[in-house]
């Protein structure tokens, strides 16, 4: 049991349940034909990242990858605005410009959500430099997948962080798969944290089936990072379902899936809560129901929300007040119009 005790575990359980239910509802939104596209990457099986997020301070920053919904929920994002963004609606977090892969809430410390595997990793190095230069005590955390561990940019970023002793943590969510490729077909050494250690970081592996362990280790690694020793957390978990909405994972067999899905931080936490008599099944069920209602409402919210107007397309390419791109039709008018 971690220092937060059972109260903490209950909190983490609720967060994890909110993540799982949110993702299930994303699925529903898709089935109802209301998502903007099908590039929907669910974080079911990865809910224990709640433990990492819980170890972060409010003022810490972070970057996420294409599978970032869970992280944003754990950081406290609004499911309505998330779901709206997934639907490509105007009141979504990115005004309907980003979609599922780019949901980000800068008010919560996000520095971006990337659909380029590894793309957001180096940004935390710069955030760390910023904090150091301004004497701030923040940490910046990069979340990414095991697949991203084969991208060179990770090593460039880790080396800089270690060299400059920056308040930075690299958090690798090792769900065993990059699309159809199991980690042992992508990396010769699958102990990914060992590479971080060789680069001079504080590298640890944690069990993503156990949110308490994840939380406790994250506290230690973050604390260390805050004091100038950057860290790397490899959280082992399992991608319970396909890579994205349309993928049925034909490249892995059922036995493996059944085994893999046993690593389930949500169910494990629930079992522990009951076992420790922190809670009972009935009250957890009612907590789950409440979460379900919240997420159902998010779906309805997103469906009812209005799409962005065509004019909004030309906004935010550059800062407000700066010259924005000229729409094509205006350009054509200047060539073909009467005033030519």
């Amino acid at each position, binding site marked *: 049991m971690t220092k937060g005790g059972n109260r903490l575990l209950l909190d983490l359980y609720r967060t994890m349940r909110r993540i799982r239910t949110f993702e299930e509802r994303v699925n529903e939104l898709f089935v109802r034909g209301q998502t*903007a*596209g*099908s*590039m929907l990457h669910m974080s079911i099986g990865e809910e224990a990242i709640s433990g990492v997020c819980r170890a972060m301070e409010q003022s810490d920053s972070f970057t996420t990858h294409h599978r970032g919904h869970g992280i944003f929920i754990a950081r406290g994002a609004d499911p309505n605005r998330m779901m709206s963004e997934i639907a*490509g*609606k105007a009141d979504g977090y*990115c005004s*309907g*410009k*980003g*979609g*599922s*892969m*780019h949901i980000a809430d800068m008010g919560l410390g996000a520095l971006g959500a*990337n*659909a*380029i*595997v*590894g*793309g957001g990793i180096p940004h935390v190095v710069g955030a760390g430099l910023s904090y150091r230069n301004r004497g701030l005590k923040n940490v910046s955390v990069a979340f990414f997948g095991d*697949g*991203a561990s*084969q*991208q*060179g940019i990770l090593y460039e970023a880790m080396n800089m962080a270690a060299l400059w002793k920056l308040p930075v943590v690299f958090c690798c969510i090792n769900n065993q798969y*990059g*699309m*159809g*490729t199991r980690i042992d*077909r*992508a*990396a010769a050494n699958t102990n990914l944290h060992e590479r971080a250690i060789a680069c001079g970081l504080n590298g640890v592996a944690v069990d993503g089936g156990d949110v308490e362990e994840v939380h406790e280790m994250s506290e230690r690694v973050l604390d260390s990072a805050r004091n100038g020793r950057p860290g790397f957390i490899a959280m082992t978990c399992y991608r319970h379902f396909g890579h994205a909405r349309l993928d049925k994972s034909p*490249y892995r067999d059922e036995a493996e899936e059944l085994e893999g899905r046993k690593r389930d931080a949500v169910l494990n936490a629930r079992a522990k809560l009951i076992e420790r008599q922190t809670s009972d099944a009935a009250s957890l069920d009612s907590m789950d129901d409440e979460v379900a209602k919240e997420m159902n409402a998010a779906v309805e919210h997103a469906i009812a929300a209005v*799409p*962005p107007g*065509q004019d*909004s*397309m*030309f906004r935010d*390419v550059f800062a407000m007040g700066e010259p924005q*791109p*000229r*729409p*094509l*039709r205006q*350009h*054509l*008018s200047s*060539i*073909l*119009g*009467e005033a030519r």
Partner: protein
Amino acid sequence: MAAIETTYRDALRQALIDAMTEDASIFVMGEEVGRYGGAYGVTKGLLEMFGENRVVDTPIAEAGIIGAAIGAAMTGSRPVAELMYIDFAGLTMDQVANQAAKSRYMFGGQIGVPMVLRTQGGTGRSAAAQHSQSLEAWFTLIPGLRVVMPATVNDAYHLLRMALKHPDPVIFIEHKALYVRKGELDVDNPDGAWGKSAIRREGTDVTIVTYSKMVFESLAAAEALAGHGVSAEVIDIRCLNPLDDETFITSVMKTGRAMVVTEAVMTSGFAAELSARISERCFDFLEEPVVRVTGEDIPIPVSPALERGAVPSAQLIAETGLWLVKRIAPSWAA
């Protein structure tokens, strides 16, 4: 063999199968090309047919993949490296532009890099700003690269077959929205030689110069224009390098009017090059300025309606054509 109806995807796949069967030095590598069968299914079944040595699933490491392909090409193999989305090209441009493109020249002709980089771009799937770009102009800027962008099923097959016999690096850019499109494949009859344009529709009033998916939007526009008494000639350039200037120049000399249609943004897109060349060479024949109909100068938004609005539609092309030829302004220009 007679022509058969098939999809762009299957034509590409067939080209790979035929080429790999014929030439044992060809192998395919890239993310998810093997067990997964390719993100867009082009390489489905190849692993079973050709085995793991010739269908290589790679880690997610785009620069390394292209770099490895270069080394393989330099040592007697003919790699087909798949870059899942052209948007990831930014990770590979050093290998593409400084290594693949320049090796022959920089080493005084001692070595070549006969590789094909297959990738796909464009909009149509609400895949947002980092998965929907049209970045062909990054490649056309670099001497030493060939750049090919097939629109039709027959070209998908034949241009890929030709690319796989080519001595220099070929950037082969497919369009994500064309994979499921059907068309005629005649494995014995390419639509024309490597580096030659194809006139997809003949016309007398205006020349539309285009490539990739915009060929079909342009053809639809030409059809609509015909309804207004405007006869449009549609030229599919197919290869951006080598570029067949002569076909479109001859056409514009005949029609006296030209539109260049691309999905890429306007600024610095390949349409600029085409427009400049037409104006240079057809100056004395042009009745009106060469007009570019292109994507908006913005990142691609995820919302389906905005995404559609960010790139040319058949309607926009037709409206612009009518304006250009008949001086009938579209409603939005009132």
